[in-house]
């Protein structure tokens, strides 16, 4: 798999570490509701299709990226920095 890091350019996926579903993991609940945190930490949509997910460019710029990828074909359609919530600039 080749991921086009917005800073470093296109790299093989072995330069990265994956964390999982970006939409889930970037929306940390506030407050003390166990159920809300249970949803956040454990429940996953796990779609067969487009998946927005977090990849860390560990061997590169050490930026967390939101990669939009089709889990059936591995085709990547969008990559953005996670600190913009994966919105805006793409590569």
């Amino acid at each position, binding site marked *: 798999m080749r991921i086009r890091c917005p800073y470093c350019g296109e790299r093989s996926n072995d330069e990265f570490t994956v*964390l999982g579903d970006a939409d889930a993991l970037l929306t940390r609940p506030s407050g003390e509701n166990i159920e*809300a945190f249970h949803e956040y930490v454990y429940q996953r949509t796990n779609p067969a299709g487009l998946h927005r997910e977090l990849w*860390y460019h560990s061997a590169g710029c050490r*930026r967390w990226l939101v990669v939009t990828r089709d889990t059936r074909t591995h085709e990547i359609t969008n990559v953005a920095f996670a600190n913009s919530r994966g919105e805006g600039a793409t590569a």
Partner: protein
Amino acid sequence: MSSAGRLPTGGLIDRARPIQFRFDGRSMSGFAGDTLASALIGNGVGLVGRSFKYHRPRGILSAGSEEPNALAELRSGARREPNTRATTVELFDGLEAQSQNRWPSLGFDILALNGLAGGFLSAGFYYKTFMWPAAFWEKVYEPLIRRAAGLGRSASAEDPDHYDKAHAHCDILVIGAGPAGLMAALTAARSGARVILADEDSLPGGRLNGERHEIDGRAGSKWAATATAELAAMPNVRLMRRTTIFGVYDGGTYGAVERVNDHVAVPPPFQPRQRMWRIYARRAILAAGALERPLVFANNDRPGIMLAGAVRSYINRFGVTPGQRLAVFTCSDNGWRAAADAAAAGVSIEAVIDSRSDVAPALGADLVARGIRIFRGAQVIRALGSRALQAIEVRDHTGRVSSILCDALAMSGGWSPVTHLTSHLGGRPVWSEAHAAFVPGTLPPGMSVVGAANGAMTLARALASGRDAGARTASDLDRTVSDAPLPKADDEPASVRALWHVSGGRGPAFVDFQNDVTAKDVGLANREGYRSVELLKRYTTLGMATDQGKTSNVNALAILASERAQPVAAVGTTLNRPPYTPVAIGALAGHHRGKDFRATRLSPLHEWAREQGAAFIESGAWLRASWFPRPGENDWLESASREVRAVRSAVGLTDVSTLGKIDIQGPDAATLLDRVYCNTFSTLQVGRARYGVMLREDGFVMDDGTTSRLAADHFVMTTTTANAVGIMRHLEFCHQGLWPDLDVQMASVSEQWAQLAIAGPKSRETLTRIVDRQHDISDAAFPYLTAREITVLGGTRARLFRISYSGELAYELAVPAGVGSAVASAIMEAGKDLGIQPYGLEAMGIMRIEKGHVAGNEINGQTTARDLGLGKMMSRKKDYIGRVLAERPALVTPDRWGLVGLKPVDWTSRIRAGAHLIPIGAAATTANDLGYVTSVAFSPTFERWIGLGLISGGASKHGTRIRLVDLLRGTDVEAEVCDPVFYDPKGERLHG
């Protein structure tokens, strides 16, 4: 020496360069340019191997990497290489090959008896028997089966050759250097595009080298040589011979293996045997050609029966003939060319049998003229002979059977495009009735297919499709393609009418030669319900041999289709998977084996520790000083005990450089720390250090360490060695992902600082001697948990932390890594008269257990802060990672396993980590399992074994007794549960 099969002239071999080799111990000779297979044929060797199951005698079927039969063990000793296809081995001087899967010899193989029992050993028979008595499976049946199965023998000593890996990038990767690939590469390269052209063969040209077609009025092989030379001269082209593209992966990544030195006996010094390439290509053009199919009739596996195209290759390229009296059996025009080529080479043609009755009369005109017997609408129903072909039985169009003497039979069942690489990303080829073959279906992104691989079966069409794809792909990539004329070649007749199975002959008709799958097996599988092609494959093992069904799959699918009375298209194909041809495990590993399996991290104090005589131990990625043996000491325990005593009574020096160190700066640094640690850091004073615990979001402990505040907006964090990388990643996630608004800057400084722990009652005195005078480190000026930047040894920058892991008065001194060893030596020197000793991991481990500090054995991802007695650190005043889920019901129940100390009641008893805690008098069962021993040490301080453990109820169990049961090592020791802090529970010593 026999030269039975060598033709007097012809071929692309170099007859001026004879080569000596051995097969099964017999010396033979061949020529440069031969393969092992062609050289064997040249020496009149027909019987080359034995099949997998029936141990049938087998010869050579093909002239390429699709070979199912002619497998041999190549080389010897540690270089022994099983299952090597003789058809792909370039001959070299001194080559040694042995037949395999036979006993006692190739000519006489006991297990050939299996063949007689063929009726009982039909597909999947082993699933139906060998079940009684149950115990016999492992003891009797399975060992027998295993010994009979397998093919060649692997080497038993370490592979002495080395392998390497490389990366290459290109605009266009052309796979296959036949006419289509060469034309595609030429066209693309002339546009300036970066082109890689790879072919598994040593000689570019593909079928051109095996056939007699002309291009632009010259021999096709000459044209190929010229094209190759042009490509080799272009700076934007990388020509890769002997290189198989073995797999297609995501994002235009192609795996390739280059056999750099397989064509010599031993790789020259410093050169690899093979090199694995990762090729990153923006586009790929697949020009992998087509593979000819065998015909399925009784005894079609007899040595001497060969694919027609292979016969042509042997005659035209290698100047050898598989027999003196050749017959041809075909269902396509192509077979006739084999007869013509053989006739032209002076081989006697006994007959041409074409299953089609309406063959274009022009096809065999010259053969007819020479009086050669021609059968139309006829079939070969059986081959005769056992270790060599002797005759064939032919059933003519009237149904009359006659037999024809011959010692070789060329068969052509039509051609199957090599679509394998199109399937590696999941695409399935589609059936084309016109080609009587599967042609590429959905392609991997960026790939196009040309030539025979795409069903363009004639030379003219191969060249044209290559040119077109080369041009199209280059202009896709914004290159300007010049109009070069297409070389001229004939469009030879290539029609085919599939003939899948000839019935009526007595004897097994093989579909998959290597795995001995017959047409009957296919029928049986279908009858028994293994009807999906994939089930057929798995039940019969069809296509699962080393050739992966290159010559057999399509025939089998077609036979299945006819059994099911369905079109082939409805039956579909099995999935092709990488590698295209098998790849040496060594090549896929490359440099990374032995000590180079993974990088070894060395501490900046490594040199110092080595000078001190350290015993090193692999610890994660690191090599660490474990203990420092001294003369007269017998084992690690003696050394470590001495080291502990030195620390407890005087002073010791150890290396803690492997801890993770993270520099955290910025106005919001404290805020970030508050959110990632369960305790509070915003209240930490400048110049102070604090122990912190981090939780995972699920509420379990992730890591611990001290973090110090060097300035209001500047902290340095330490993490455990094991988690250094993970914590950095976690912090970056928290910052970039969760709280990007925080103004924080983080940098790992793990590599920058050597860190030394100086511990013991005389540590301050020792340090005073190297700390520059202007820095006051007296207890008053530098109390416990002080952290400050200082200088040592006359101006060397350093950071000094008064923290203690050992429980003694202790400091950690960080100095730039480059001077680490020198500073350590200076400290040793300074503390010499105070009795300073270096100490290692073992001593450190003992002292932390004496102090009840938790480490990796306790922070194992299954424990909460409360479990570890750290619950009080969990702030109630702020939000932090893990706060909410740590309150889940099951994480706060009183019977959770909590940290305690363990002391054997009999003080001489040894205890061991991993023992479980069982109540006295209770049976050792899971139901009575109350916990386990996490860490143990022989404490030189208390002169007894002590341990830490996790026990149901935790601290509430202090004072009770329990058994430490180690069933694995057969010990059962009674112990008292106690506070985990054995040594100096009030912590007075570290304030000293």
